[in-house]
Each structure stands twice: as C-alpha cells, then as structure tokens.
C-alpha cells in the first residue's frame, strides 16, 4: 500500500483531483507532537484491564477545564443467536469504560451499534450499553439506519444532530448517514434489500450515501453562530468530515461545505468512526481522529493513508480481539489526547513489513462486479 505523500481534503490545482492538496505537509508543533508521541507507541497503565494505552497528543484544545471522555463505536451486533463474538467484544469495551467510569465525563457511542438495523440487534445493544453508567450521547451509523430509515434508532437513542457545551468546548454530534440519495425506490427494494445494499462497505448500489445534506449544514451554521471563534469546537460524526476514501464512503460527500462552516473557528477537532482503524489527518484549522471498532478492523484503503497517519500494525485475523477496541479522549487547556485502547500490546508498526499500510505495495484493486448487474 502506498503512503500518501499529500494531505487530503482539498482540490489539487495541478491534478484537479478532489481531496488531495499538492505540497509537502507542513511540520507544525502539533504535527511534531503527534508524530513523536505516536512513534512512542505503547505506554503502560492499562494492564490491570488487560489493554495497552497508546497516546496521540495534539495541542489543539483550549478548554477552560480539562476533561476526558470515552468513545465506543462500530459494535455491529447481530442477534446473539447468530454471533456471540461481537457481543463479547462490545461487552468488554463497555465493561472497561465503566471500570474507568470516574475518569470520564461522558461517553460517545459513534454509530453502527447494529449490523442490519434489526430491532433485535438494537435492543441487544441497548441492553449491553446499560453497563455504562456515565452520561451517554449517540450518533447513528448506516447499519443502524436503513432498515426503517432510523425510526427505531431515533426512538431508542434520540435524534441527531445535537449540541451541548462542556467546560468551555462546544460539542456537536452529526448525522452523516441518514441522507443517502434514494437508491431504493426506482429499484423497488424492500427495506431488507435496502439495508442489505447499504451493509456492504464496498457495494456500489447505495452510492455516495454519506453526507450532511442542506438542512443539516444550515443547522450546523446556526449551531455555531453564537460561539466565540477562538473557543474549541469538537464535532462527532460516524464518517470522517474530509475525503479519505470515497469508494468505501470514508468521507461525507459535502465535506467542503461543512469545512467552510467550520473554517472560521480556531480549533476544530473531528472524532469519527466507520473506518475501523487508526487514522490521523489535518486540514487547516481542523484535525481528524479515526476511532477503532470493537467488531473487526478494516484494511487501509488501496490508495494509502494520509501523510500524517502512522499506520496500525498488521493484525491476526485468527484472534477476534486483535486490532479492535475503543478510545479514550482527553481535552486539556493546551492539548487533545487520543488513546487507542486496542486489545494488543503493539498498536503501531515499527517495521515496514509489519505495517497495515506497508504490505500492499504491489496491490492494485478493482471495484466489485456482481452488484453492477441489475438484480431486480
């Protein structure tokens, strides 16, 4: 796999490609801190809970008081009768969050609680989530949504977008999954078929489904209209607010409009799920932290990773607990800490041959073929 030598997220005036900006990445103090601390790899401290903490620290925040919160997402629960592994891993994550509960002001659940949006799956998730006693905030994933267009999700976990202020930071939760262009009506898909088409990451039928939409962009504009431009803003989203890899919807299609709204603010941080892997990127005043899944890790996209990302280590597919976990985020007056609570000792590769992004140098991939055939 190729390491991208350019930072993603804007139009390259030379190539005309979206999402890629020419030029060498500028090494700021932020970048230096990030790279050096990530390279520092594992830090002891979580061994009592049998995980290893890995810090990524960025001096982006300016919170009035420091605080920590937990992120769990992408549990992808099936009914317990079909798959117990995902249940075990979600249970472990929620148990660990609760064990450290006094440390956290709140927990974000970042979407894809269910695999196929089935009420049985969502109910199972709700039961498991009861383990966590701290205040919980929810944003949906596409797997939670397309069986009934979010009806059950909204009923159980509340509607999004939302916002609240906490210790000098404005926190915003977006719905980046509920505004797909209608790919089902013309094909007369049943709700199950609509969900099935959405559930394959590399499917083409649902198209560029991740987006905010006009109304939500307007809401975002209004939600920030009374906020001081020098104060920090944290945005939670299931999919990343930049163009990472559109064929797998590792983006929101209207990220330019979203960034235009966020651009006037001095410190903006986007924490997102969906990609099931550690990724870090910066664009102007914004930085982006991808979070782990509890269910399984995705491979890095064939085009590579943003230049500022240190890739995770290759994992063992024979060990269901490898390459997955949850996240602890810390906000202080001068920095943001990202800790990957991955259930293995080494999170990042030190050797090229061990890197999840380094072993694909000769790999060239084609999109799939079967879902191009009109099946209905």
């Amino acid at each position: 796999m190729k390491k991208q030598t350019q930072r993603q997220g804007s139009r390259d005036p030379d190539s005309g490609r979206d999402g890629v900006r020419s030029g060498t990445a500028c090494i700021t103090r932020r970048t230096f801190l990030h790279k050096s601390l990530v390279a520092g790899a594992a830090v002891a401290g979580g061994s009592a809970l049998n995980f290893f903490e890995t810090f990524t620290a960025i001096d982006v925040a300016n919170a009035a008081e420091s605080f920590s919160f937990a992120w769990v997402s992408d549990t992808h629960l099936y009914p317990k009768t079909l798959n117990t592994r995902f249940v075990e891993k979600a249970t472990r994550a929620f148990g660990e969050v609760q064990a450290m509960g006094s440390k956290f002001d709140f927990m974000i659940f970042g979407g894809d609680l269910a695999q196929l949006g089935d009420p049985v799956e969502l109910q199972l998730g709700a039961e498991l989530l009861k383990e966590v006693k701290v205040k919980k905030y929810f944003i949906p994933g596409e797997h939670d949504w397309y069986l009934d267009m979010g009806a059950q999700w909204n009923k159980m976990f509340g509607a999004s977008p939302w916002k609240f202020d906490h210790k000098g930071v404005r926190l915003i939760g977006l719905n980046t999954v509920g505004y797909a262009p209608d790919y089902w009506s013309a094909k007369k898909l049943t709700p199950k078929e609509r969900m099935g088409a959405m559930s394959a990451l590399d499917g083409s039928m649902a198209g560029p489904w991740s987006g905010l939409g006009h109304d939500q962009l307007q809401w975002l504009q209004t939600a920030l209209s009374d906020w001081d431009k020098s104060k920090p803003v944290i945005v939670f989203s299931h999919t990343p607010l930049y163009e990472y890899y559109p064929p797998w919807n590792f983006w929101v299609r209207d990220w330019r409009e979203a960034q235009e709204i966020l651009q006037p603010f001095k410190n903006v941080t986007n924490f997102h799920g969906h990609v099931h892997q550690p990724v870090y990127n910066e664009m102007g005043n914004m930085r982006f932290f991808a979070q782990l899944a509890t269910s399984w890790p995705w491979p890095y996209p064939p085009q590579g990773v943003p230049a500022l990302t240190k890739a995770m280590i290759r994992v063992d597919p024979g060990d269901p607990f490898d390459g997955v976990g949850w996240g602890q985020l810390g906000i202080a007056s001068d920095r943001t800490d990202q800790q990957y609570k991955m259930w293995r000792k080494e999170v990042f590769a030190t050797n090229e041959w061990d890197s999840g992004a380094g072993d694909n140098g000769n790999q060239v991939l084609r999109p799939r073929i079967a879902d191009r055939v009109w099946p209905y």
Partner: protein
Amino acid sequence: MRTRKLRYAAALGGCVLGTVLVLGAQQAAAHKDPVDAQTLKMIEDQFTEQVIIGDKLFHGDGDEQKRLGVTLSKTGMACAMCHPFTADTHPHEFPKFQVQMSEFAALRDMINWCIEKPNEGVKIDPNSPAMKALEAYIYWSNTGSKLDPGRF
C-alpha cells in the same frame, strides 16, 4: 464360427478406434483453429460468470451458497467484511509461508483457513466450483497487482 466372431470383434474395434481418431482429430483441429470473435466472447463470458459467482460468495450471498452446497460462514461474517474490494487478500503473494497456519500455503489454503477460523464455516473442497469461483473473483479483483510470490 470362430472366424466370424473374430471378424465382428475386428470390425467393432475398428469402429471404436475410428471414432476415437475422428473425435481426437476434431478436438485437435478445434484447439488449433484460430479463435473467432464468438468463441472469444464465450471464453470471456465463462470467466466473467465465475467472477460474478465468486463475488456473490465473497459477499455472503445465501442463495449462491445454497446452490453450490457450501457454508462459508456461520457467524454472519462474509469474506468482504474484512476484505472490501478483496483488499489484503494478496493473491499475488501466494504461495508463501503463512504464519497463522504455520505452513507453506497456496491461496486456496488461506481461503479455507478464513472460512474455518474467523468465519466458523465449513471448509470447502479445494477443487470445488465454489473454490474456483472465489479464486476467479479474487484474482480478477487484483488484476494489475504485481506478482510477488513468497512475500510476508
């Protein structure tokens, strides 16, 4: 009487031999004939058909598994859930020593390992139509990848 039997046997043998020679010659001629556009399309269609079947199996299609009599997963997991666009299947790196298996493995060995371990499915016959279709899809999807056998 004995002579007549011998004549019948010789005639029968001659017929069989003649049939074999004629069919063999036709086969040889067909193989040596220039391939016309229609035949070429037939060959390509055969391949594409297998790729599509493999794609469906790779993405957990229940009907296709039933048709071919295979159970690739018992957990709801499908191959594509860890390998979108067949990423990280690396068919161009096989055969190689596969660490998880602790043995020198071909692609089809690794496919069966994935079916059995992460997917908790039922191993398939390495020469079965399902295996050939899965291989067809994985190789097709990696068209353009550079051969690099043995790579870790």
